[in-house]
């Protein structure tokens, strides 16, 4: 598949990636991380060899920016960003509001799997780990959510 003009890539994924980053980081930090995500994508764009899996690629970059961002902000321990429901995903909305307290990798894994339907190969790539490690992060995240929110069980 040919690499589309960056404009098409941006139009196709900008909104969804902003929603994802808002869930991970809260609205206050999401916009900067979102801009950084698409600037990184633009820098890397000439190195793409084909136009497949660009959506997962966008989420991968966003996840790395978000993890960097959270690492930088780690001194503010225990902070749980406000997680608004940002788009029309009613089945997921209920889960989303509870992921704020999860460890960052588990949180990204849960949100990517259940919020954006990425497979574990793609989530593994985003987290810089294997598909199996991504699966474990997501299921451990879900177990933790079930423990703390009995109503989700």
């Amino acid at each position, binding site marked *: 598949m040919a690499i*589309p*003009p*960056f*404009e098409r890539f941006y139009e196709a994924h900008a909104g969804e990636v902003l929603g994802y980053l808002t869930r991970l980081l809260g609205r206050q930090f999401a916009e900067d991380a979102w*801009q950084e995500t698409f*600037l990184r994508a633009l*820098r890397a*764009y000439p190195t793409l060899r084909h136009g497949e899996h660009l959506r997962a690629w966008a989420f991968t970059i966003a996840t790395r920016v978000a993890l960097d961002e959270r690492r930088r902000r780690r001194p503010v321990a225990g902070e749980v960003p406000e997680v608004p429901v940002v788009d029309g995903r009613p089945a997921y909305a209920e889960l989303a509001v509870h992921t704020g307290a999860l460890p960052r990798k588990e949180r990204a894994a849960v949100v990517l799997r259940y919020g954006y339907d990425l497979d574990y190969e793609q989530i593994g790539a985003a987290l810089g780990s294997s598909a199996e490690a991504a699966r474990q992060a997501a299921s451990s995240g879900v177990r933790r959510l079930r423990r703390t929110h009995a109503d989700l069980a």
Partner: protein
Amino acid sequence: MQISPDLDRRFRDAAAAGGLLDAAYDLVDSPVGTLLVAATDRGLCRIAYTPDPDALAAALGPRVLRVPSRLAPARRQLDEYFAGERRVFDLPVDLRVPAFQRDVLRELARVPFGALATYGELARRIGKPRAARAVGGALNRNPVPIVLPCHRVVGARGALVGYAGGLDRKRTLLALEGAGTRE
């Protein structure tokens, strides 16, 4: 999630300011249809009658992004031209064409508003009097029509002959400039 217009604009401007684009472009409405107008950091590089970023990316590279602020001077001058308020464009042009075509386009740029030249005359002016047909080919691939006015070039007897954007557009542009043609 909706990207706010302000956030969208900030990203597009940052992408262009960072020198990360193969070309920035915008779409400009005109009496000859919607134009795709593109520029590199060095100047205007494309005016296309087919407003399609895929064709732009195929020619210049995949990092093409709509950045209206970067094309604001070109848009303003085109608007003025179509409103009859501008006869000469004052825009840097980034021509990436073979030497022969560059010679033709430089000579073309000297044909003034409202005037006509023939393919043969342009061939003579670049010192290649027998190259009228090749001049026609070079004009047909003009990357920045209107600003480089290939619509002002006609056949030996004054007939419109051809235009990459179609003869209707050529006729419209010449009428706008008040140039007389024979058909």
